[in-house]
């Protein structure tokens, strides 16, 4: 499910005000193989996609909220400089105003084509998450399928309430890589939302159909 569909599902109709949609990715490392990064960006843009994270203000059950929504269709929802910048600006704005922050993740991790600068986004956004907590602003994270690598190892699991979608795969290293590296047989349901609930990483598993109602309730409780 793309960012637009998530916004339609969660935000009050007509309340979405997107911010910083004008900042765009660039091929800073001159990445050419197996596919030129510029072509990947261009192809995604032709599909009408605008980076792996979109951010802005909306209302949910008439309460204001800052939103950061990943879009897996844009280079696997990977955390890039632009994605990190949009997240950090939204988190800072939420911290400054006290308006709750809602994150919806869907990401394979950091974007390889932006190299170590993509890795640095983990620190950029987690610094901002720390400030959000210090400002005593509520932070809710909705983890959807999949959430891995540099996104699970940065802001995704740092919320006051972590909410996973049923069956979503959530982890740091993907199961394929773990099998390659350790020859381990992984149990059924390894890294599923339910597995993460059992292992203490998420607070609740909530189906999509009940998500908006649950968020409205949480916004009410954490006011």
């Amino acid at each position: 499910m793309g960012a637009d569909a998530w916004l339609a599902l969660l935000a009050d109709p007509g309340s979405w005000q997107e911010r910083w949609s004008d900042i765009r990715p660039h091929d800073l490392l001159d990445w050419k193989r197996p596919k030129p990064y510029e072509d990947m960006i261009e192809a995604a843009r032709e599909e009408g996609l605008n980076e792996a994270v979109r951010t802005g203000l909306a209302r949910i059950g008439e309460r204001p909220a800052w939103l950061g929504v990943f879009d897996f269709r844009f280079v696997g929802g990977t955390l890039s400089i632009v994605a990190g910048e949009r997240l950090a600006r939204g988190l800072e704005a939420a911290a400054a105003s006290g308006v709750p922050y809602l994150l919806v993740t869907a990401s394979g991790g950091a974007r390889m084509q932006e190299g170590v600068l993509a890795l640095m986004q983990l620190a950029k956004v987690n610094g901002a998450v720390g400030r959000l907590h210090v400002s005593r602003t509520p932070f809710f994270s909705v983890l959807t399928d999949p959430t891995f690598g540099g996104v699970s190892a940065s802001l995704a699991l740092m919320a006051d309430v972590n909410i996973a979608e049923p069956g979503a795969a959530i982890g740091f290293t993907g199961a394929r890589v773990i099998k390659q590296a350790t020859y381990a047989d992984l149990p059924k349901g390894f890294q599923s939302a339910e597995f993460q609930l059992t292992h203490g990483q998420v607070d609740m598993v909530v189906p999509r159909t009940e998500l908006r109602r649950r968020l409205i309730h949480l916004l009410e409780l954490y006011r």
Partner: protein
Amino acid sequence: MTDTLSVWQLVEMARHQDRPYFGDYVSRLVPDFVELHGDRLSADDPALVAGIGTWHGRTAVFMGNQKGRTLSERLHRNWGMMHPEGYRKAIRLAHQAAKFGFPIVCLVDTPGAYPGAGAEERGIAAAIAGAIMEWFTIPVPVVACIIGEGGSGGALGLAVADRVLMMENSIYSVASPEAAASIVWRDNARKVEAAEQLQITSRDLLAMGVVEEVIPEPSGGAHTDYDAAARALDEALLRAVQPLLEEDTQLLLERRYERYRYIDSLIGAAEHFGPKVSAKALAE
């Protein structure tokens, strides 16, 4: 040295089995080093050695990945790949350093966090994320140096610092070349091509503004002369830590935040983003 080697030769140099490890450096820099163990939750992670000792006349906390040289040592140290307990130990000792006002030195040498089932079951993602977030709150000088491999979030969990340095023949990357090749080609045999595109050498990182200083190694590499490599590291660390000791704590934390907040500005990203937007302006 760096000028004459290919990127892949540099990767091999960074991983050289005779390359000085954390233990080789700490024994030279901090002769009275006392190792401290455990995360106080469940375990001690041998992939991270951490402790305390006298460094240039003051007490400092040193921590770093230890890879191990013999097979049994490598198994024990897990090739320097940390489990969640390692990141939790690091943060426990960071808080302890803060309590006593000791500066912290982190020497990073890991291909990444351990990609295993146990690490996942015990919350490796949240352990790394928590460490990255927590480093921003530690009100004492923190200096990190990549001494061999700096791989992925597993390395960053030990490298959120006021100054980040790199030994000349070390690498620092969003993912190991093998992992990056596996992600973009679905074939980790393309590791050399991946390494070339990722821009992971000390010179690349200095140019991007991700590290403040590259520490020259003895000709032939750090493994040819441990004493000379340790002296160069010691001097660079001291140069980095000293001005930070003078700094006001609030300012120190503010600058650490800004170091990462605007870390991509040098490469030109700032021009694409337009002027920096202050949080205050956003709230209005």
